[in-house]
């Protein structure tokens, strides 16, 4: 990755300038032109370095509720269990983790507590394993910026 790519990624993670031509603004900040910025972003997207450029919201201030859940699925059931879980639009993240008590961890965002409970109950019924719900009590940090540097 060269210096300009790293600069673009760092700026894009902080946030797009809220103006009609944000990429021109970014180009001005790093001393290149708009077309160069657009071309580089296209390549970074094609390579999979950038997942997407979009709005990121705070679920709670939109009246939504979110939680983290965990399941202990035997090795042979991991695939079928995760398939059921991942089908839900409300499930945004899901990971297989190295742990003997709980190996599948997923986050749920729902439009209220009742809806949340309904989804969790339904998943539990479908997969046949207990879903442990670990709702958050206090939030200390959320930061999604990965500092990028030029690499040789």
């Amino acid at each position, binding site marked *: 990755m060269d210096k300009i790519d790293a600069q673009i990624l760092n700026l894009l993670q902080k946030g797009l300038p809220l103006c009609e031509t944000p990429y021109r603004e970014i180009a001005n900040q790093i001393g290149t032109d708009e077309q160069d910025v657009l071309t580089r972003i296209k390549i970074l997207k094609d390579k999979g370095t950038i997942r997407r450029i979009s709005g990121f919201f705070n679920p709670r201030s939109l009246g939504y509720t979110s939680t983290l859940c965990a399941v202990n699925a035997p090795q042979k059931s991991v695939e079928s269990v995760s398939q059921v879980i991942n089908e839900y639009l409300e499930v945004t993240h899901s990971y297989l983790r190295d742990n003997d008590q709980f190996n599948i961890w997923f986050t749920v965002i729902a439009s209220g507590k009742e809806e949340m409970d309904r989804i969790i109950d339904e998943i539990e019924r479908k997969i046949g394993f207990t879903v442990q719900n670990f709702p958050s009590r206090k939030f200390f940090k959320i930061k999604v910026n990965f500092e990028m540097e030029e*690499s040789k």
Partner: protein
Amino acid sequence: MIGETDKKIIRLLSDDLPLESEPFKGMAQKLGIDQKELLERIACLEQNGSLRRVGAALKHTNAGYCSNVMVVWNIDEKNAEHAGGFMADQREVSHCYQREHSEKWQYNLYTMIHGKSEQECETVIRKIADNIQHNGYKKLYTIKELKKTSAKYYSNT
């Protein structure tokens, strides 16, 4: 209360923006408002805290951060505030939450740690462990990402 237009903006803005000189233009057209109004509304959503940012999400494993671990900590209630603050201060910690725990799972603080190597993650974990009061912790390395998408807000509006 969030108005209908703002709900539509939130829904549209959750999807990947078109990669073009004026990425907000099409959205404004869809909503039947001009770009200036759309941008003002987005800025308002940001000011009131509903919107964290309009920006890029990276696939961190492709961005050189290939080691990702969720570490769960068992912390006494009275020490949680200090411990959570210390964890949040670490650059490698992206998420830090205090959560409900259960009899069988006594861990109540959760941190997501990202490093360019497992060693980098381990160094941060040790630094946290040495600087807070805890009754044990567990490292849950990511074996596989099974799903990662954006939340679908107001999908029926």
